[in-house]
């Protein structure tokens, strides 16, 4: 199984982008490309060739599900797991994202020290389920 190395992160909130970078790069040792909108993500995704997409659900203009739909058109991203990030509201909400094609949902607020580990285990589970 390949190792998780490159994460494309989409979030319009600058402070969340900054702390996510530290959580994944400095603490988790991963490479991160931060995009502040779904549009920018669609433009840059193919060139970056991420192993995993981490997308905030609530963004202006293009929200998480819309971004996911647009990214699905990018051929280079076939088989790349998508993780949604959302502030917790109702427990039922998550299933809706899974139904849209997300691999997992991470609830905000997240602990920056544990974020990389969480993505790594999602990654492992995803590949386990693909090969099994």
């Amino acid at each position, binding site marked *: 199984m390949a190792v998780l190395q490159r994460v494309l992160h989409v979030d319009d*909130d600058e*402070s*969340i982008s*900054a*702390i996510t970078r*530290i959580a994944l790069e*400095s*603490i*988790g*040792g991963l490479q991160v490309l931060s995009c502040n909108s779904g549009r920018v993500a669609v433009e840059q995704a193919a060139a970056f060739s991420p192993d995993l997409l981490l997308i905030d659900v*609530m963004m202006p203009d293009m929200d998480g599900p819309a971004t996911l739909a647009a990214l699905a058109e990018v051929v280079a991203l076939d088989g790349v797991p998508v993780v949604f*990030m*959302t*502030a*917790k*509201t109702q427990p039922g909400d998550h299933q809706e994202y899974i139904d849209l094609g997300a691999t997992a949902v991470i609830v*905000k*607020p*997240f*602990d*920056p*020290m*544990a974020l*990389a*580990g*969480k993505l*790594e*285990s999602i990654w492992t589970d995803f590949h386990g389920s693909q090969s099994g």
Partner: protein
Amino acid sequence: MDHNPVDIVQERLRQLREDYRLWLDDELNALTGKVEGLTGDTHHRVAWLEVRNRLHKIAGGAGTFGFCDIGEACRELEMQLDEALSTGRALDDIKHSLMALHERFEPALDATISVLSGQAEAIPVNTASSVPNATAKAYPRVYILEDDETLGHQLCQILASFHYAATLFVDGLALQQACRAQCPDALILDLHFADDGAAEGLAIGEAIQHETTAQLPIFATEESQRFDVQLRAVRAGVEGFLTRPLDPIRLAEMLEVHLRGHRAAPMRVLMVDDDAATLDYHRLVLETAGFSVTTLDQPELVLEVMENFAPDVLVLDVSMPQCSGPELAQIVRYHSRWLQVPIVYLSASGDARAQLTAMTKAGDDFMVKPIAPEALVAAVTARARRARTLATALSRDGLTGLLKHADIKEQLGAALAQARRRQQPLCVVMLDIDHFKRVNDTYGHLVGDEVIRALANLLSRRLRESDLIGRYGGEEFLLVLNDCEEPQAVRIVDELREAFARFSFLADQQSFACTYSAGVLQASAGNGVETLIGRADQRLYRAKSEGRNRVVAAD
């Protein structure tokens, strides 16, 4: 993997948190202004939706930067607002809460938060009795809801003697407001409060609990032993339940047991690895989880470092150039002092045979790099906790949790050596409960045990973490006060004597009090452990023969 040095990462996290704090302060202020002019009219709907989105953003972000309470409060309001907007319910209450939001969290935003979620928080309960100007501010704050004022004041007094800052409330609303202004460390509720049925006090507790994010420890007092009341207490997160007539000493003991966990020194981890970057990374992960970490990239220094650091857990890299992890583990195990220390191996390969060999030689756990931060924290926590519990169980007295006879003597020896090296004064105190046999004979051993436990709790609570407390015999205690001169020691032990004498114990519907006598002695050059204890004991004997209930520091 490319890891930044720990301090750089931590500095960046700190800066981000500080930036966020400033932003949040502005944002809450702006929200207050924004909702001020809004009403439930339909043409304000768009503006309310914007407020909702801004609350959503804080709900998702604040916790990540350490402002969990604010995030939770915003999430709550967001959900209420959502519901109100979809059902057309009145918005007045929400508007009111929103406008109070900034003021409510001003204190939290004033203090720079240095703690992330999941990180152990230092709770300032360890107040030094030897420091005369230690302020009441540092004492744990306890709020008491009690409509019997006499009993309430008595309870406050007892808790004050255990160095808790206790405040009595006879009005549920006032208590709720006080909790909003400053959250206490614990809450004591009279469940029978107000005469509207047994659960009234509990309802107030539930309302307060609902408003605070962090679980607030609640202790309940109640006349009946009804199952349904106790079940409701359990569900409301009540930590301790006492039936009346109330025994304040028991209550103080419950509080002490509950808060003691927070006062334990952080677990110590020593990590040996030849790769400095890995060490830095793992150190960051473990320190953030509240561990005290020492790293070492020269295996040959391991025994020296262990001697000074006394780790609870040892984490070893399996392959290092000078010597392997399993070899190093065997060297450590040659020394009986370190037989108990759990050893966790980290290896770059998952080779099952290497793993087996390593574990056969010495070691408790084997982890393959790269390790997810939570996995490392979980493995080390489990090992460290187990090691601590074992060490404590072996050296602590079952009734009091204090050091046992042999262990306090051993630790006195070490303290004495340290005091000499540092040229600091050290005092030894022998202390004995007066007429204890009479207590046992009159009220039985169970009551006697309670008296011993009350004194043990008083001593643990009031002395410094650096002082040593041992149960030397049945009702006899040995204290070692580090960095303390004789006159100061006499003053401390005398203050404690007065506090103990004020305790009132209950047995067979009668109340009684106990006293103690003590002999205090400052160590002088050349005194050995036995001599010191012997001479302190002579002074104790003198205190007894001079009439008991006193502290003697003369031969």
